[in-house]
């Protein structure tokens, strides 16, 4: 490599700008590919972006920590975006108020199913104890799930990855699964996806229908709460 290029590479490696730009481009590519595929849910922009970035990190031998110094600016926006969920919630408040009882029932059923079936299936197939603790809160939004795993002796960064994989899975299977079940109620569809697949499920729900997105946001928030309370209790019991 000539010295100028070498210097440029050192700059890009050490500066947050390079990896921040790479993150946005990788996601943009993912969105374009999904659009080119007619918006089909199994072409998931996050999965594509993650694959591209992991490939780039592997090829350039960049440690994840270096990458994250740039990408953290995107990661940071998860907080304000979660607060912003209050806006569609407020706008759809009458529908939300009418659905309080079915929401609470679906929340309890969904939270217990999410934790019990994840741990049960992984345990039956011989996953390690550490993995079992790390997968228990997989349906909860990233920061909360990491907190739960940490408290119970799991591996927080593994939980983060399992959470994202759950979100991608949910975003991919939700539409065909709910269609196969013949469910047409946008509130029920959205809420279920939010409970099962947190923010990525919510993002997908907003893509499909605004009311579904709103209920997905509520499902995500309530499930974070319910799991944070329920999992430690179940674990000690």
């Amino acid at each position, binding site marked *: 490599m000539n010295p100028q290029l070498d210097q440029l590479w050192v700059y890009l490696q050490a500066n947050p700008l390079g990896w921040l730009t790479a*993150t946005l481009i990788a*996601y943009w590519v993912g969105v374009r590919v999904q659009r080119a595929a007619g918006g089909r849910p199994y072409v998931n922009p*996050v999965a594509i*972006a*993650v694959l591209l*970035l992991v490939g780039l990190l592997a090829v350039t031998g960049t440690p*994840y920590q270096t*990458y*994250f110094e740039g990408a953290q600016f*995107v*990661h940071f926006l998860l907080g*304000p975006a*979660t*607060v912003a969920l*209050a*806006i569609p*919630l*407020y706008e759809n408040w009458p529908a939300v108020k009418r659905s309080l*009882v*079915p*929401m609470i*029932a*679906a*929340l309890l*059923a*969904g939270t217990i*199913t999410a934790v019990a*079936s*994840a741990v049960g*299936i*992984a345990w039956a197939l011989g*996953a*390690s104890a550490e*993995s079992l603790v790390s*997968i228990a809160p997989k349906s909860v*939004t990233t920061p*909360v799930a990491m907190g739960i795993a940490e408290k119970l002796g799991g*591996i927080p*960064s593994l939980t*983060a990855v*399992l959470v994202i*994989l*759950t*979100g991608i*899975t949910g975003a991919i*299977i939700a539409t065909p*699964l709910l269609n196969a*079940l013949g469910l047409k*109620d946008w509130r029920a569809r959205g*809420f*279920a996806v939010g*409970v*099962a697949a947190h*923010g*990525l499920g919510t*993002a997908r729900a*907003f893509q499909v229908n605004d009311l579904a997105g709103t209920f997905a946001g509520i499902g995500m*928030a309530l499930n*974070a709460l319910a799991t*944070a309370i329920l999992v430690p209790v179940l674990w000690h019991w």
Partner: protein
Amino acid sequence: MIEAGILLLLCQLAGESLVRALDIPVPGPVLGAVFMLGFLTLRRRVPDHLGRTSHDLLANFSLLFVPAGAGIILHAARLEAEAVALLAALIGSTALTIAVAALVFVGVDRLVSGKAEQESGA
């Protein structure tokens, strides 16, 4: 945009602070959303700037998960060793959770609103 940013960050800050001060098991941003809901209820409408900013943020919500997702590179070895168990658990449990939550929602909704009787033979 500045006003919307300030509002969003202030709500999050209040949420994070209260969660830490009282040691409650709720994520700070979720409590922040509750504060924002309270603010909107008092204002009785969504300010235009806030509506636009929040729409832009939520339209790109999935992008925000990409950095954490790339962390998969840290756990490649474990994921490979336990791939079958973890993937089966992820896919099986996610599908089951979506189905159970959606069916319970619809079932209870029918019970509560008494639509079951109206929709004869449904």
